[in-house]
């Protein structure tokens, strides 16, 4: 619940930030071509990244696990005036009227700042979370590490038994395909494909920030370091 409130705050902040820009743009449009820059929502991206990353790492943030708005129980989305069947005493005999309200959209979701609820993002997250169990021991013994471009890489082949190496190579390939698709998809689902690199950068930092102690990661220069 606390999260949703924050989401509302965020959307309000955004609206108030954009209003003056819109007001300014209106007269300007009359006299010249205007480019309206939409700034990358860094804080929202970080929050979105954390929710996905904690899902993948299989951790619970704070007290409550991160939930997508759709997964709320029915009661919340269906308002009380949902469906009613009301007899209508018309002049032409039996006449029935069915009122349908369908499921109303909670306003918080409609105005989410950086959406991570598209089917593709959820299926990528689920696929990565399922793979995480297999990758975890290799992260723990330093065989693989988190790269500075938001992917994973083999850093110490000697730590992997020979019989497991091809399987690990495949896991790394699949994980990186999923991660690349995830960054592209978040940018696309939010209507800003050009944000892909910034989203990747945000994720690269958050994968490390949320990782347990002892895992290896690449610093900005590409050198491997162990998380303290």
């Amino acid at each position: 619940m606390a999260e949703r409130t924050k989401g509302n705050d965020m959307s309000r902040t955004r609206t108030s930030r954009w209003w003056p820009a819109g007001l300014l743009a209106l007269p300007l449009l009359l006299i010249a071509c205007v480019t309206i820059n939409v700034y990358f929502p860094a804080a929202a991206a970080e929050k979105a990244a954390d929710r996905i990353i904690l899902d993948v790492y299989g951790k619970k943030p704070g007290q409550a696990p991160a939930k997508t708005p759709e997964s709320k129980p029915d009661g919340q989305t269906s308002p009380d005036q949902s469906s009613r069947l009301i007899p209508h005493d018309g002049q032409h005999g039996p006449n029935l009227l069915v009122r349908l309200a369908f499921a109303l959209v909670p306003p918080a979701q409609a105005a989410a700042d950086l959406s991570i609820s598209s089917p593709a993002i959820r299926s990528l997250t689920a696929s990565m979370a399922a793979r995480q169990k297999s990758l975890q021991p290799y992260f723990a013994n330093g065989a693989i590490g988190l790269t500075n471009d938001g992917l994973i890489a083999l850093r110490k082949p000697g730590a992997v038994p020979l019989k497991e190496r091809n399987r690990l190579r495949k896991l790394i390939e699949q994980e990186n395909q999923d991660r690349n698709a995830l960054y592209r998809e978040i940018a696309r689902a939010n209507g800003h494909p050009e944000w892909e690199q910034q989203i990747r950068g945000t994720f690269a930092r958050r994968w490390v920030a949320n990782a347990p102690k002892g895992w290896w990661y690449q610093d900005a220069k590409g050198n491997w370091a162990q998380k303290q």
Partner: protein
Amino acid sequence: MTLDLGSLQGPTWRAEGVNVALRLREGDRAKLSATVRRLTLPPPLGVIRNARITCPRARLSDTVIACPQGTLALHTPRLGQRQAGLSFRYRTTDKKLELHVSALALAGGRVDVSGEYDRGAWTARIATRQVDGARLAELLASLPGWPAASSLGGKLDLHATLSGDVARGQATLRSAQIKGSVSKLAFSSADGRNAGEDIDADIDARVERRGRSWQATGRVTTRGGTVCIGPCWTLPDTDTTARLEARFDPTSGSLDLHPIQLTQGQALQATANVRLRLDGRPRLVAAQLELAPSRLKAVYGTWLQPLLIGTPIDSLDTAGRISGNVDYRAGSVQQVNLFVDDIYLDDRAQRFGIYGASGRIHWSGGDSLRESHLRWRGGHLYRVRLGAADLAFESQGSDLRLARPASVAILDGGLQIDHFSLDGIGTPALRSSFDAVLTPVSMEALTHALGWPIMSGKLSGVIPSVTYKGGELQVGGVLLVRAFDGSITVRGLRLEQLFGAVPQLYADVDLRGLDLTSLTRTFSFGNIQGRLDGHVRGLHLVDWKPVAFDARLATPSNDDSRHRISQKAVDNLTNLGGGGITGALSRSLLGIFKEFSYDRLGISCRLHDGICDMDGVAPAPHGYYIVKGGGLPRIDIIGYAHEVDWNELLARLASVTAHEGPVVK
């Protein structure tokens, strides 16, 4: 007689405390013993302490000094105290020397060493028995050039013979031969990238100098084990033999491997000729590979699969036979010829398969035109079954095209391919174009294959131009689906990242004159009679799930068919609206009538951001009509919500069609 010789010294060695004792017996027999307190040898041999040679049956004559059954004892810091058998024979006339050290305990096994020097030529033989690789590696770790932090394991039974010359006090190597077997061999480079384990192998190799160049012949037969050079190969448990002849010219830096032969029982036989330049950065100059008719299972499963990890063809079940050759020269592949005989390729992820394929594929670089031919008995793409096909291709440079029209059976219909081309093969600018006619495929067969609700009707279409470029597939024509007694046309079909993690599909769909009776029966929605027109514009599927579209479905304005809606359909519609308690209310009232009459029905949904902006056929007070009543008995269904959660709607639709809705009595 005892001689205290004090210290002796050579250019690379120094002996201190040298003492020789000699006791003469009858004739030329004698007992000889010699001790050296400290012998300093060049690394890696290092310092040997208290070396003692004892020859109880030495022979001393004018021409020969011999020690047939002596012993050697010594102490080195690394080996500790060691004893071994020793025999030698030295002829003073021509300085011929023969020396044998036998049964020297080393690294858990035994080592025999013998040497011979005769008129400027030397030979050394080293034989190991059950020498432990790991302990040997510890001993060798101080050798110059021995890779640091690398590891070795296993048991070594090897005979090595080295021979060479001594000229101007300098010993040179002329030839070396190594023969024997290793068991449970394991090795690893310092970074662990290149490694092997559990390798049982027989080795027979010989290197010799011919003038200024070196020539080598070798044979290695392995039985099981794993070798990694980046990717890992699991070696077959049956005998796999590699034979090699090589020639290295140090002045030009040219290394010829001519030939390399690989034989894996009856399953695989391949020969390669390779020329490398090793001056500067090693590079491949030319290579020819010839694969004799071999089992695809061995070629792919053992050798190719590890190189394909991460590609869509890294987990195939294979069968059949393959042969061919590849010619590489001047920095590019010049020619490829492949012959396949009754091969099967089946993706373990069940995305595609080709069965019983035979044919020949020819390709040449440059401008020469080559013809290829491929036919198969069947296959599948995802769960759609493909029939037999017979295809003739022409290739020219990096372009490939279908030489004559062909057809592929798809379920009970078929694809008549008039044109197919693939341009820029092996370049990032790979493009494909495709013209075809899809002859009717029954929707029963297609929906069954796809695991969808069974639909009746036919799918057909003219596909005038399909283009593929950069992972994007674009269909130029119109796909026509004849289903539900009406027609569904699909235009502007575009697929992105088709084999990627998140495939994307874009299309515009138009629906004309669909019969609601068969539509509602198919989806077990409860009977609705009438016709339906509509469109789905800007359809965008991500990972095959809709994320955006602008859809509108409604009764056509000129529709004169019977318009009825059953109580079950009404109840399902109300359930879609999220009604729980309505069932009880509806039962009593709806129970009177089995079905109702309507004038028009329709619904529109503009999907964006997980929200469906909903509307109906006509505005109603505070809402919109989804069903506008007319005739008797009459029913109106009015929707009020204009923004509907798409996932919620889908979940309810799924539960309604799955459970066939509540039954109204």
